């Protein structure tokens, strides 16, 4: 079986985003022998894009470069990608599952008379049908969803669902520039972008997250969590209880109504482990729970459990991690 799989490229700090690369790695597997993986890019500048796409495994690259595509807007991107897809009829289109990526997946699917499956964490062929696995009901259930659209099957893919391909996995194939089909007039405009201050809240990309809950007692209790996160070069997360109490901004919230994260190491400090919190972190690679109640539900999903007082244990951890990382 050989298929043509498109991966819609998203910009990253240099070249293309990490999630785009992860998806390219998976796409290569899904395309099969003799299949094609095309990296499709929309943007105002093509610097480093084709190289990045090729290095991560794209066997073809299509660049649609236009000042009107500078920032993602549903209408312009749907128009450009939709026209190309109608023309070339790929079997599958994979899109990084950021908030904008999900908007694009839904919009593009509707424009192609088909359907999208969002936030996939697995993708597998069942015969000729591509099936995605995704969190349902805030991760309390896992849904297996088939896409049987008559046109391209569109899936958005969760960041960190798939491993980064080894550098140079690439096909080094053709790079083609195509003039994008764009709407005559722009009905949607980006006025400005106000970036979040500091990098501390980038939970999605963090390799390490140290999260605090009501067990920290009061807002000042977060100091021990901040210290441990700083020692590990990680980000600070939080339960909804402490966000609602105003101890820390919403941007830090992990869970069903906050962010879904999958770091290499998640350390939960004074968090009980309500099902809505677990929904946002249970797939983390290594989960450490620190709680004074040995029956706290957080221990059911943890890999390592420490029963005791956060104020006694967390500062010790900070000290010992610092020593270990310096040594």
């Amino acid at each position: 079986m050989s298929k043509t799989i498109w991966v819609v490229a998203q910009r990253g700090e240099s070249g293309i985003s990490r999630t785009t690369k992860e998806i390219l790695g998976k796409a290569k597997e899904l395309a099969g022998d003799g299949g094609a993986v095309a990296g499709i890019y929309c943007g105002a500048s093509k610097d480093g894009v084709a190289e990045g796409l090729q290095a991560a495994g794209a066997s073809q690259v299509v660049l649609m470069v236009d000042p009107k595509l500078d920032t993602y807007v549903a209408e312009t991107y749907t128009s450009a990608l939709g026209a190309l897809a109608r023309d070339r009829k790929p079997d599958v289109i994979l899109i990084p599952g950021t908030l904008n990526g999900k908007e694009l997946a839904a919009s593009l699917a509707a424009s192609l008379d088909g359907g999208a499956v969002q936030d996939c964490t697995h993708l597998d062929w069942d015969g000729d049908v591509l099936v995605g696995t995704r969190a349902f009901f805030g991760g309390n259930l896992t849904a297996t969803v088939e896409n049987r659209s008559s046109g391209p099957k569109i899936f958005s893919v969760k960041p960190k669902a798939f491993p980064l391909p080894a550098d140079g996995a690439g096909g080094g194939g053709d790079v083609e520039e195509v003039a994008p089909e764009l709407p005559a007039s722009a009905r949607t405009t980006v006025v400005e972008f106000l970036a979040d201050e500091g990098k501390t809240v980038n939970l999605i990309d963090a390799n390490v997250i140290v999260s605090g809950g009501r067990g920290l007692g009061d807002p000042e209790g977060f100091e021990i969590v901040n210290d441990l996160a700083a020692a590990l070069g990680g980000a600070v997360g939080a339960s909804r209880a402490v966000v609602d109490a105003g101890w820390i901004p919403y941007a830090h919230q992990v869970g069903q109504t906050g962010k879904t994260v999958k770091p290499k190491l998640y350390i939960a400090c004074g968090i009980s482990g309500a099902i809505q919190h677990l929904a946002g972190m249970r797939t983390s690679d290594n989960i450490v729970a620190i709680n004074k109640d040995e029956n706290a539900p957080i221990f059911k999903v943890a890999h390592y459990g420490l029963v005791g007082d956060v104020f006694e244990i967390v500062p010790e951890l900070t000290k010992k991690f610092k020593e270990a990382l310096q040594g």
Partner: protein
Amino acid sequence: MKAIVFVKEVPETPEGVSVSENGQVQAAGGGNFLTDPIDPFAIETALQIKDAKGGEVHAVTAGNSRAEKILKEALAMGVDNSYLVADDALEGSDPNAIARVLAGAAKKIGDYDLLVTGDRAADDNSSIVTAALAQLLDIPVLTFVSEVVDFDADAKKIRVVRTLENGRQVMEATLPAVISVMKGIHEPRYPSLLGIRKASKREVPSWSLADIGVDPSTVGAAGSPTKIRSLDPPPAPSGVEMITGSPEEMAATLVQRIMDKKVL
């Protein structure tokens, strides 16, 4: 100003939720369905624009007659009219197909300036309907809105803030437009006792697919482009290693484990 808010019923809890042979999500033993917790935020957003600018707000859902309950709740909150699209052919519709139905209902109501949805449904979490609606109706879309900065019905423009992963984006679109709102955009009002009493007496018109001009073959189990094959509990955790000792000993052991695994 004319706004339409799309609401949705969801199972009360994930416990016992399953999927039927044709892809329809079911609650345990036919269990309880409630208004999606995000919907009051969508309704409040439309009502605040109405309070400031005048106009009318309509609520719509697609499903079966059971969903009349959530439409009465919308009426109790203060929407002017509620409409139910109920048709046996809807059974098994995925969010992509539901968008076709809601687009049909929007056209039937007609002359709208603003369509409002929640940013993601509590059960499905898909965030598909909003952007799909925009495509089907050929109007602009603004998803994940955390603030409506300005709504100008005369100049036919809306300005919003979207909260994205790494910052806040201010965007403007011409009206009519469709937006999805995030939790916390406004504090939803409680329905008044009078509102609840009045709502209980209102008739909720029910439309079939034929009434709204939607071809039944494009919706339901057969017309949906995607299908949930199964819903399963998440994979069982691998089992916890409880680390014991004094705080210092526990810390030392854990650091050892993490360093040995080369996690960092």
